[in-house]
């Protein structure tokens, strides 16, 4: 199985559905240590992405993701809009057509680079980066050891889940949660959680 245009579209649509479903939980997490809008931000963004995709005749999987990123930048705002927007644009730009596991790993890594270039967060700062970094590492390792796309995606999803979960004891150093200082400890980061959701979605659609 390669990452082709239908799969790219299916992924983005599945993310939109997952965000719609998990909106409440994401906002709940953001209320605890942020400003209570992460769920509605992503919901608004991916709803707009669906509309944008409807009219699109994508040239390839990269075009799907680039359009996704551009739309997120234009519609989300907040911290997550530019971060996820730049990430999807970077993934799209780096994606050959069709992409095997190794190529997809590198494209996903380009997305992480974009997030880090813009947001300047280090691992351990209690952000998206804490879920994204282990996910890329796991995807790469799996791809390098000959895993199929579904296998690599599943490994990445598990690693992202663990990374998101591991943000709980952290003290935030970036984003709004950093304003809470010590009080940010004990809560899972909303952005890391949505990143885990995005990787879990990739695993789900490739296995089903």
């Amino acid at each position, binding site marked *: 199985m390669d990452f082709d245009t239908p799969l790219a579209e299916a992924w983005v649509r599945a993310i939109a559905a997952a965000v719609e479903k998990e909106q409440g939980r994401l906002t709940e997490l953001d209320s605890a240590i942020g400003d209570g*809008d992460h769920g509605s931000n992503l919901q608004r963004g991916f709803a707009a992405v669906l509309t944008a995709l409807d009219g699109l005749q994508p040239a390839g999987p990269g075009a799907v993701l680039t359009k996704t990123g551009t739309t997120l930048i234009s519609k*989300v*705002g*907040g911290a997550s809009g*530019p971060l996820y927007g730049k990430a999807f644009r970077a993934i799209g730009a780096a994606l050959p057509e069709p992409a095997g596991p190794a190529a997809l790993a590198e494209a996903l890594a380009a997305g992480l680079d974009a997030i880090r270039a813009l*947001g300047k967060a280090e691992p351990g700062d209690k952000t998206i980066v804490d879920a994204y970094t282990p996910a890329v590492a796991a995807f790469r390792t799996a791809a390098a050891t000959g895993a199929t796309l579904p296998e690599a995606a599943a490994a990445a999803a598990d690693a992202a889940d663990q990374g998101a979960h591991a943000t709980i004891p952290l003290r935030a150093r970036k984003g709004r949660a950093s*304003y809470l*200082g010590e009080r940010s400890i004990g809560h899972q980061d909303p952005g890391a959680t949505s990143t885990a959701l995005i990787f879990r979605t990739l695993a789900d659609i490739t296995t089903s």
Partner: protein
Amino acid sequence: MKKLINTPESVLEDALAGVAAAHPELTVDIPNRVITRAVRPAAPKVALISGGGSGHEPLHGGFVGPGMLDAACPGEIFTSPVPDQMLAAAKAADSGAGVVFIVKNYTGDVMNFELAAELAAEEGVEVRTVLVNDDVAVEDSTWTAGRRGTGATVLVEKTAGALAERGAPLDEVAALGERVNAASRSFAIALTAATVPAAGKPGFDLPEDEIEVGVGIHGEPGRRREKLRPARELAAEVVETILADHHLNPGDEVIALLNGLGGTPLLELYIVYGEVAARLAAHGITVARSLVGNYVTSLDMTGFSLTLTKADTQLLELWDAPVDTPALKRA
């Protein structure tokens, strides 16, 4: 949640329709979410553009007008606007003299304005950015997101707006904004949390006798909780916290902004301001100018913030300069 809204999703659009209806002196582009002056300045001048999440009204749309902003970009509630808005505002407001973005220091705002500045530069608009970061409740360090921008925004917008109106060049206007920000410190206390319409319930729960100290303007909790105390003691705590960080000496003059967070009646703000003024007087600090009211709010949050800006002749003169906006007027 009890709110005067139609639906949580349409809050911003419906509010902009109200702003448009109430203020013929403003042009409100509802689809693109850009508020500009209905009458463009006669001569070319540096354009001031501010923006940020909604829920802080009258910030920023209420400060568009002669003597202050040229355009405002309201985001969704507590969510920074998107780059497209700032780009549209920059293109609409630029008269060739360049544009100053006034950005409150929040990760989202900084990143979205940064993307907008790139896009504007590509379209030939010269952009400077003034970052406002006055909230002493937040640790100021290069390893973190840094201090939040709050009340000082009003002072930056007013004084830089006055300077721009006089035809000062781009770098000078931006430098003045940075100077005002550097001369400003703020601190806030909340009695209750804000309720974001889409969330439907308060951002945090506070027992009947507790307050959040060092709170932000986005419904985020503060640094710690305390028991509610008399206004005199809360005012003292806020003044002392600011003075501990601010380099003010006896004899110094300040501009004081005693700001309500949205749900607190003016009566209570005046009570707090009386205590603030007395405390500052005890330190030998003179309040040269003051402003008491709701200027940088956090939806329905009850509580207040205090901003102290060290004043000098130039700042006072710019502060006193004429302004004609919905929320701030001066002849």
